[in-house]
């Protein structure tokens, strides 16, 4: 084991950070929008839509993300002819696109359940107060229901984003050169698995450390009503005495 080698490896692996971050950011944002739509459908009055979303969530939560990536990248390759006719082959022959698709669809399934829980936990009384002053439909959703739900789910969604950072390492299995992909290549060249993986793990730790702090900051900034309780000292005493 040599420290200079780890340091050298660390610096080489850093070149994979932009790819890892890009995969995370794009799939988290795409997944979030999809998740929001799915959650609204899941809670809608349309039975077929509810059934569709429930099946979707079941399939993507119940199967490994690795299998999902393989299915989309390798599996769909079998249907090249059909995809070419639909002018989709350009996309599906690209492993980067396939990974992004798998990551987005996967996080959308988890996100859908998180957002559904958040929407359902919005106090009915506050929604009723909105109705009682003349709000309905999109206005009520935009001004009352969604903001309260978003604040409720922020900590749980933060957790999902961290899982996604780690999930991007699966992209290495379909030739994407993100942190883990570069690490695998270095190991093949040097046979020094311990040092390389230790350096790779350290980079993921660093990314997630920064991310957790960012999420905590956003949480604090957006939920002053939870942060500043009327009687914080008493609340803490109450918690202390019940534990």
């Amino acid at each position: 084991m040599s420290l200079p080698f780890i340091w050298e490896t660390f610096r080489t692996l850093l070149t994979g950070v932009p790819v890892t971050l890009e995969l995370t950011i794009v799939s988290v944002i795409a997944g979030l929008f999809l998740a929001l739509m799915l959650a609204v459908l899941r809670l809608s009055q349309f039975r077929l839509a509810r059934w569709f979303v429930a099946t979707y969530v079941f399939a993507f939560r119940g199967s490994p993300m690795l299998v999902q990536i393989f299915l989309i990248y390798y599996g769909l390759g079998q249907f090249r002819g059909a995809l070419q006719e639909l002018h989709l082959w350009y996309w599906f022959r690209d492993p980067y696109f396939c990974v992004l698709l798998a990551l987005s669809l996967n996080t959308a399934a988890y996100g859908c359940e998180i957002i559904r829980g958040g929407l359902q936990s919005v106090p009915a009384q506050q929604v009723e107060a909105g109705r009682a002053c003349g709000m309905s439909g999109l206005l009520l959703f935009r001004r009352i229901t969604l903001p309260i739900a978003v604040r409720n789910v922020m900590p749980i969604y933060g957790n999902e984003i961290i899982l996604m950072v780690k999930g991007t390492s699966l992209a290495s299995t379909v030739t994407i050169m993100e942190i883990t992909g570069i690490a695998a290549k270095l190991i093949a060249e040097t046979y020094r698995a311990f040092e390389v993986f230790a350096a790779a793990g350290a980079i993921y730790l660093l990314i997630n450390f920064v991310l957790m702090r960012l999420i905590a900051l956003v949480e604090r900034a957006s939920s002053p009503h939870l942060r500043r309780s009327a009687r914080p000292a008493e609340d803490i005493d109450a918690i202390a005495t019940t534990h």
Partner: protein
Amino acid sequence: MTAEPAVSLRDIRKKFGHFEVLKGISFDAKEGDVISILGSSGSGKSTMLRCINMLEVPTSGTVSISGEAIATKARHGASLPASSRQVDRIRSEVAMVFQSFNLWSHMTILQNIIEAPIHVQKRAKAECIAEAEALLEKVGIVDKRGAYPSELSGGQQQRVAIARALAQKPKVLLFDEPTSALDPELVGEVLTVMRGLANEGRTMLVVTHEMGFAREVSDRILFLHKGQIEVDGRPGEIFTKGVNPHFDQFTSRVH
């Protein structure tokens, strides 16, 4: 003053499943009336109040606000408002104060008050803020405009909720047991504000257990028993024994 009653209910019936909560309620409230609605729990008094702004849609019967009847339709055996636009508009003119305040927890006190005026009634923000500040002063909440509801006591929250209702410049104010969720020592501050509003000549319908308030402040008392109005009269007339056996029983239990 218009000739049309501010609120008019005609033969309102409401069923929950097979249970009929309201069994044909009719009354008119004139502009400027302060009406207390009494009754033991389960008498249907809150349901009746909630029918006025369609938070509960009557199974049959007609609710009219300032002479405008709220249209309803039946679908799959349930009663629904025929036009959600009409209901939204009427709700912005008929403000409600709830038992558990129902302030929006993610908004400051000021934001709570200006929310409906800005986003429902589309009024200018600067004007709404100026009015909100005057209203806060009126309900005796000073220096709290930037606070969140969770930082306030129950009595303060309810007074903010009253300010929020007033900000809509409503034709009618509905109060659904506004003091029932409060600690006894906080009831007075809310009643004082309500007394002030009554003296201003506002139209108020108040579901309450506060007999003192009902007696001293209201022009008229409705007593509901098992979904029907059994007593309807001025406080001076009805508190003599023998008007109605259910009412006598009720008042003897409350006192």
